[in-house]
């Protein structure tokens, strides 16, 4: 799977790069689990899940610091260039996004605790429906971006970033529905604020997941697609994949 990280004349270099990649996946797995726990806290109205998220948040932070340290050491010692450099820089950026996803998970956990531990009644299932729907989408995106990072699969990452941003559309329509809801009965404003904060956090998670997929494309293909997804997704990847196939045959 991590073929493209290997093959250096200095074998230890292979080991260090592979280890770095694995640690990011470890962090990704933890962050994914944090998000899942946070959402379960919401869904099952169970603040134990939220507590787990808050207790583990420091683990995410520590992983970020540790990986950052490894990145700096590798740059200093190995002087990476070309693909290796792109991998290391992408890792450095990906962990920032992962850490922020971890922050959003903690934020959701806090909100869940606030909602279910307080004296007031919890928001109605009707209100929570949008939140759960968006959460599902965000989790899928995060999971897919981590899978593309795991396999260093640019085709997969591209499919993710070029797909219509369902989560964003859902976010916009949720806001509209909330506004209507408030117009009907302004006493719901307390809940509505919670919901807005929740869906904003969930929307951010989706954005960070897309960023990670963009780094995968940069790592593998050397194409920086940030802020130009429109033109990138239109022109497609046919050119790249064709030459990729050619070189595979010759191997």
């Amino acid at each position, binding site marked *: 799977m991590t073929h493209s990280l290997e093959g250096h004349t200095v074998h230890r270099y292979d080991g260090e790069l592979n280890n770095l*990649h694995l640690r990011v*996946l470890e962090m990704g797995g933890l962050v*994914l689990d944090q998000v899942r726990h946070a959402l379960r806290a919401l869904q099952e109205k169970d603040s134990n899940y939220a507590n787990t998220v808050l207790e583990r948040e420091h683990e995410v932070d520590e992983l970020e610091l540790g990986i950052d340290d490894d990145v700096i050491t590798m740059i200093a010692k190995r*002087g990476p260039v070309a*693909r290796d450099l792109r991998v290391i820089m992408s890792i450095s950026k990906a962990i920032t996004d992962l850490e922020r996803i971890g922050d959003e998970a903690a934020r959701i956990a806090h909100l869940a605790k606030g909602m279910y531990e307080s004296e007031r009644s919890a928001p109605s299932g009707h209100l929570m429906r949008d939140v759960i729907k968006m959460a*599902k989408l965000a989790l899928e995106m995060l999971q897919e971006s981590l899978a593309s990072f*795991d396999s260093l699969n640019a085709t997969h990452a591209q499919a993710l970033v070029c797909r219509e941003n369902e989560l964003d559309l859902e976010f916009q329509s949720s806001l509209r529905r909330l506004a209507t809801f408030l117009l009907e009965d302004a006493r719901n404003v307390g809940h509505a604020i919670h919901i807005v904060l929740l869906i904003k956090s969930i929307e951010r998670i989706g954005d960070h997941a897309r960023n990670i997929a963009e780094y995968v494309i940069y790592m593998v293909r*050397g194409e920086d697609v940030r802020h130009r997804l429109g033109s990138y997704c239109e022109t497609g990847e046919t050119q790249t994949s064709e030459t*990729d196939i050619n*070189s595979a045959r010759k191997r």
Partner: protein
Amino acid sequence: MQNTQTGVKTPPRTTAGPTELDAASDVKDAVTVAHTATVSRDVRETVGEIRVADPRIRCDNVSVYYGEKRAINDISLDIEKNAVIALIGPSGCGKSTFLRCLNRMNDTIDGCRVTGDIVLDEININSPKIDVVPLRAQVGMVFQKPNPFPKSIWENIAFGPRIHGLAQDKEELDEIVVSSLKRAGLWSEVNDRLDQPGTGLSGGQQQRLCIARTIAVGPEVILMDEPCSALDPIATARIEDLIDELREQYTICIVTHSMQQAARVSQRTAYFHLGDLIEVGDTDQIFTNPRHELTEDYITGRFG
């Protein structure tokens, strides 16, 4: 609402386990995984832009033979004016052989034959009619090992201008010596001992003396064959800094085994492999996103 749990599958927390998404990856994906540079190792044609808008030297189909053996194959490449081009590649790839073509240094090797056109100022300098002595003043060379003459510092630099008749008298010669030493960044270190032997200087100073000697005859192109490989990091940094300054007035072509050095000093980089020019391009591109797999293998340390 129930399907939030069923719809979301989490990979194991601490390991990078395969997911169902991996299983779906087809052959094409596996290929994308294996390669970032997109030109296959089997391709021997040059990848990248061999021509530039403002060439100082234009090479067309240059081949070099040592007896029957062909050392470099059909290389076409522009050497850009007022820029540094770095030639990189493993030992025996032909980069030094190519460099030596540019001022006919291969003439000194028995059984060496150079074919193709090397055009400088619209003249093919590879023609047998060319007088190599003025050519080598126009296209100067700095070697791997500093090789000052066993004479005084002053004499080391004055020698070239004198035999090329560049100075009328001692005064003019003095001027050339001082300005060359200044341009080579050596003046402040040696101005009080110009009469002392050049061989008494440190390695880095000797190399800068050799650069000053090259500059003294008013070249337009400076060829450097691993100019820093015998120097310590500080002396190397000095030379690299000097190369950067000299670029404004001269065209520089440098052969180096240090990829970091190529990345630091050059604007264009050419990668040679087994006598072929594999890839040429902007240094920034070559070192971040090379197009040819062989280039990537070499610069990332995956060679052999």
